[in-house]
C-alpha cells in the first residue's frame, strides 16, 4: 500500500470471471491483455499478462489487478500480490474440475503473502453450481472467507471488497445509520 492508493488483486483459474469482476468494479475502461486462446478453455480469448482497472472512493484510488488464470503464469501472481491489501480469488462454481488446482494456488498464495482473501464463487445464477458453503468445505476454509458472487454485479463485487476490509478489522468504524444494515450483509 502506498499513500492514498491501494492495490487489490483478483486471481483464480481460467474462466472464473476475473476480467468481468475487474470491469464491474472499475470506474475506468479496463486495460486488458487478452489474446486468442490456443487451448480449449471454454472461451475464445484469455488474459495473458493482467487486467487493470481502477476505482476511486473518497479520494482513495483502488487499483484492480486481474491475474492470468493459467498456472504456468503463476510467477506473475507473486509479483502482482506484492503490497496488495486484499486478494479476491474467484472460482467458477459450475467448474469443479478447476477446484483442485485453485486450492493448490490459493494455499500457496495465502501462506506466502500476508494478504486477507475472499474466495468468490461465481456463476451463482446457474442451476448446477457449487454453493459457497460447499466450496468452503472443499477448500477447508472458514465460512466468512467464501462468498457467492455474480461477477457482473457491481453490488456483489462491492460486498467482496467489504468482506476483505472486515478482515483488516476496520469494519467497526462508524457507518452512516441509514446505510448500516446494508453494509453488514456478508452472505448471499
Amino acid at each position, binding site marked *: *500500500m502506498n*499513500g*492514498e492508493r*491501494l492495490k487489490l488483486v483478483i486471481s483464480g483459474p481460467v474462466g472464473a470471471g476475473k476480467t468481468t469482476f475487474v470491469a464491474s*468494479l472499475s470506474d475506468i475502461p479496463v486495460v486488458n491483455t487478452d489474446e486468442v486462446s490456443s487451448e480449449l478453455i471454454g472461451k475464445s480469448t484469455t488474459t495473458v499478462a493482467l487486467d487493470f482497472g481502477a476505482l476511486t*472512493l*473518497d479520494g*482513495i484510488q*483502488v487499483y484492480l489487478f486481474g491475474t492470468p488464470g493459467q498456472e504456468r503464469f503463476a510467477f506473475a501472481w507473486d509479483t502482482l500480490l506484492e503490497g496488495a*491489501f486484499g486478494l479476491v480469488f474467484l472460482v467458477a462454481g459450475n467448474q469443479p474440475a478447476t477446484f*483442485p*488446482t485453485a*486450492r*493448490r*494456488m490459493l*494455499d*500457496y498464495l*495465502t*501462506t*506466502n*503473502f*500476508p*494478504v*486477507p*482473501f475472499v474466495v468468490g464463487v461465481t456463476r451463482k445464477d446457474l442451476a448446477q453450481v457449487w454453493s459457497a458453503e460447499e466450496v468452503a468445505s472443499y477448500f*477447508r476454509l472458514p465460512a466468512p472467507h467464501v462468498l457467492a458472487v455474480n461477477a457482473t454485479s*457491481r*453490488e456483489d*463485487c*462491492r460486498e467482496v*471488497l*467489504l468482506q476483505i*476490509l472486515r*478482515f*483488516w*478489522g*476496520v*469494519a467497526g*468504524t*462508524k*457507518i*452512516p445509520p441509514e*446505510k*448500516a444494515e*446494508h*453494509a453488514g450483509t456478508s452472505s448471499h
Partner: protein
Amino acid sequence: MPVFGDLSDFPLTELLPVVAFRTGALKIALEEQGTISEIYIQNHTVCGIRKEGHYLEPLEAHQVLRDLLRRTSGLFWFDPDAEPPKTNCLSWPVHQIILEFAEEQDEAALLQHHLPTPETTFELAGEPRSYQLPLSQSIFFEKARPHLERGTTVEALATLLGLSVPHVALHLHKLHLAGFVAPRRAFRPPTPAAGQSNVLARLWRALARNRL
C-alpha cells in the same frame, strides 16, 4: 538358505508375506548402492531395519522399507540365524506395511493434482485430533510435529526429514484432510500501520455508505 532370488522375479510385496512367519533377517543387496539392507522379521512383524551395521530409527527405517518395496532388482536371501533386535522392536505388521504401500502408490497417482505446492506452509491444526492414524502417517507425523509446531513449507520439511517432496506433500495432504494440520495463512489481522489503517477505514466507510 531357505529363500533366495532377485527382486526382479519377486518384488518385496510378494516376498515379505512368504517369510513373515519366520524369524530372522531378509537381506537385500542393491548393486548400485553397494549396500546390504536387512529386514528383521519375527512373528509376522518387521522388528527392525538394519543398514551398514546400524538399526535405523523408525522414520528412516520406514523410508528404506518403502524404497525397497519399489525396487525391481536386487539380490535377496533369508538368514534364519540373524537374531532380531531384543529391544525397540518396530512391531510393524507385515500385511499392514504391504497394504499401506499399495494404497500410497494408488493415492499418489490419484491425488497428484490435489497435492500442495512445495512452497505451501503448513502448521499444526488448532484442535488436536484423538483418533488413530495409520502406521505410515503416524510415523511421519511424530517426526514432523516439532517442525509443524513452528510452521514449515512442504519442501523445507522434506529436507529436514530427508524425504522426497512428493512423499511429504502426500502426507501433509492426508494429515490436512484428517484435520491434523492446516495451511498457515500469512496474514495476521490486523496490525496495519496507523496511516494504512486510516486509509482502509476511510475506504470501508465510503463503500459502506455507497452502493457504487
